């Protein structure tokens, strides 16, 4: 915000980093749409207790498997109908947004903090520390992500918290390797040598001098990491290894809709659509972030 006022008083000053980022970000229409959708989903998640018409766990007897409002036989109390045991679909979807975003953001922040610490440590200390950290990350990457998540869940049991733990471990190597690689590249540069000569302590050097210069790819990875985590967690929920019923987690909501698929397709349609829209919006936003922050970085 400070850059905005500075710009207003001194028109000739170059745009601040945030403003110049925003200018190139808004060029990308898809990214702006993605951002708008993501913001709406965040708002829905935060305001779920206010917005949701019903308790997501309350079962309305005699109102099971109701269709959405446009179909025949709909009940105006339940816009998107009810599930097999008469729980309100809209309310469950809204509370599901909380759970999915919570999973995505927790996984992202934990792996970000751990990844930065381990990546910087590997880059700074080198030698045995580097070898040990990189070998562990290589092992995690060698085991396919879903299989590793299943292995972890088998050990610690299925629950929402354990889903977050498992998915965090699965995605940790991406952050560690990214931070390590960018930090190693930065460490060879002159400004780092200058800071070293000036007597900056290692911790300050890594955290305050080197890290800010590694942030651009890390932010992009973080954004895309949220969507990957949401998908992975929903997959675990679908397999019955994630959040347990009656938690309104989108993946878990899909798990027991198979029998209803033919007769009541919407019970299956909505939770999947919610996952798709959320993940797609975050990915659109992430693509825009990447183009705006770091044009060299390309995602396959």
């Amino acid at each position, binding site marked *: 915000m400070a850059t905005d006022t500075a710009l207003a008083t001194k028109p000739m000053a170059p745009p601040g980093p945030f403003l110049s980022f925003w200018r190139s970000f808004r060029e990308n229409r*898809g990214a702006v749409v993605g951002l708008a959708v993501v913001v709406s989903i965040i708002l829905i998640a935060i305001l779920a207790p206010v917005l949701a018409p019903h308790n997501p766990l309350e079962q309305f007897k005699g109102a099971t498997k109701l269709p959405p409002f446009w179909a025949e036989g709909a009940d105006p109390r339940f816009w998107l109908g009810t599930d097999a045991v008469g729980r309100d679909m809209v309310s469950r979807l809204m509370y599901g947004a909380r759970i999915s975003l919570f999973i995505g953001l927790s996984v992202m922040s934990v792996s970000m903090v751990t990844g930065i610490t381990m990546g910087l440590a590997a880059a700074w200390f080198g030698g045995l520390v580097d070898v040990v950290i990189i*070998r*562990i990350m*290589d*092992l995690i990457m*060698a*085991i*396919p*992500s*879903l*299989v590793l998540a*299943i*292995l972890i*869940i*088998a*050990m*610690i*049991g299925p629950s929402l918290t354990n889903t977050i733990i498992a998915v965090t471990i699965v995605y940790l190597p991406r952050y560690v390797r990214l931070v390590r690689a960018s930090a190693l590249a930065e460490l060879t540069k002159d400004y780092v040598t200058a800071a070293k000569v000036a007597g900056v302590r290692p911790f300050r050097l890594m955290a305050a001098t080197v890290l800010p210069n590694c942030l651009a790819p890390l932010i992009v990875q973080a954004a895309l990491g949220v*969507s990957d985590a949401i*998908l992975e967690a*929903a*997959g675990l929920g*679908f*397999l*019955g*290894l994630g959040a347990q019923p009656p938690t309104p987690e989108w*993946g878990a909501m*899909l798990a027991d*809709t*198979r029998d209803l*698929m*033919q007769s009541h*397709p919407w019970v*299956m*349609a909505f*939770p*999947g659509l919610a*996952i*798709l829209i959320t*993940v*797609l919006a975050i*990915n*659109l936003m992430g*693509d825009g972030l990447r183009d705006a922050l770091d044009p060299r970085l*390309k*995602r*396959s």
Partner: protein
Amino acid sequence: MIRFFLKRLALTLPTFFALMLVTFMMIRLVPGDPIEVRRGERGISPERLAQLRHEMGLDQPVLKQFWDYAWGILHGDFGTSIISRTPVLHEFFTLFPATLELTLCAMVMATLVGVPAGVFAAVRRGKIYDQALMGAALTGYSMPIFWWGLILILVMSNTLHLTPVSGRVDLIKYYYQPVTGFALIDSLLSGQKGAFMDAVRHLILPTIVLGTVPLAVIARMTRSSMLEVLEEDYVRTARAKGLANWRVIGVHALRNALIPVITSIGLQVGTLLAGAVLTETIFSWPGVGKWLIESISRRDYPALQGGIMLISAAVIVVNLLVDLTYGLINPRIRHGH
């Protein structure tokens, strides 16, 4: 080349070792009595417990136990399933061809559709085709495939009755002895009329579902790689020579643009082998992924332990093979540049 081969092989050995360590620890960390966990029995008498403990070597020091476990694995002993009482290795190899067949089909589909789509998008950069294709690719990339599978079953099988819902072949109509384990080959070998087409029909939906994400990745990657190559001088030269447009794009540009794409295709085979877990669960495809999930719900921990070890090993081997092939094709990789 031999040095490169040995170096790559040596790099996978610590990973195998660590994998053994992790799976060894896994079965110990599972909550519950270790013997009950491994035998799948409840309320074993104390005498029998002591006897079993001795039989299974659980009264030995942990290091000795790990040594025995590793020794067993090196000799092909991956434990015995609690439920079926057959060796895990045997179960794995019975089911693995189904997973492999599905994975290969998905990869072929993703490549055959993804590469032309990416090339087309790059050539028509910024046009409506490009935007539509890339929008579709990002949607595919963001797709929860378990839901995608259900939608396809609903539309294609339940409503339009075009494809079967589950399994590899209609067992009521056709029966044949598994020779290779691949339904496509075995059904042809069986000589039964219609069996092959039936196997194909069973493969269509799982292939689409499993291939969706790699298809999106390949299309996006081909496009960006193509865009880069189309800027190169030799493409301009080829155009200046007056070569036909399709020749410039299809021969000069594509050949170079495909190098990174091929690597990523190869590396995805490994990921897909494991990603088949969700697809196999949806379509009741009798492969290793579905078996893994069933082992969890049956609390068949030895099968789970051996299964995870074997699937990960298969993925490591596939990635190693991709690396080696790539080293064969591209000398720059081989010499470590």
